[in-house]
């Protein structure tokens, strides 16, 4: 079930693959913790996979979406692509150097690595939306209009 809050414009939607391996569950755990910390809001990938209208439309309309896949199989990314949802921000946990296995006893350090990975991806997105610096190398507050 999704929790609704008025005005989702400023929010970050986090969609973990939540798969059945250590890295799948790391994606889930990181998404839960990032939601609790107020960084963003975890949303139901299963609802999107089921092509339920409210879930799909929500993901299509959200300005910032971050998909977390445990491994390079990329289930979360593929589910989103099947639902015509563009995936601009995508983290693959094994790319962080965490090896995939079946040990579901998650390590705190690895959870933190995944959370940092998500935050770095978001920081990159924010940086890409900033206006280019002016000739002095310092950006002004005109949003590129001067």
């Amino acid at each position, binding site marked *: 079930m999704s929790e609704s809050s*008025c*005005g989702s414009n400023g929010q970050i939607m986090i969609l973990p693959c939540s798969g059945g391996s250590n890295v799948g569950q790391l994606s889930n755990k990181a998404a839960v913790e990032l939601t609790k910390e107020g960084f963003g809001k975890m949303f139901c990938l299963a609802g999107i996979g089921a092509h339920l209208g409210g879930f799909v439309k*929500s993901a299509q309309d959200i300005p910032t979406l971050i998909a977390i896949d445990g491994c390079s199989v990329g289930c979360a990314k593929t589910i989103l692509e099947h639902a015509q949802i563009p995936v601009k921000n995508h983290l693959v946990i094994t790319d962080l150097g965490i090896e995939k296995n079946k040990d579901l006893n998650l390590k705190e350090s690895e959870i933190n690595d995944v959370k940092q990975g998500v935050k770095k991806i978001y920081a990159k997105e924010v940086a890409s939306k900033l206006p280019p610096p002016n000739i002095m190398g310092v950006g002004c507050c005109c949003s590129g209009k001067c």
Partner: protein
Amino acid sequence: MEIKVLGPGCAKCKKTEELVMQVVSEAKIAASVEKVSDLMQIAGYGVFGTPAVIVNGEVKCVGKIPTKQEILNWIKS
């Protein structure tokens, strides 16, 4: 035609409801417009945020105030 505006009651939700009522009235379309403010009911539609607009069971918009033109397109299509 059945239109539902989902929102717990903030300014954005009220504005959305107002716009929907305006467009329905101006376009002279027979439609029932229902405001859904119960959070459990809203959650049942699977929307990430509000306001959201549902036309004949189809979620048309989530988390923003639609324009009058958008609303008109939904109810005329």
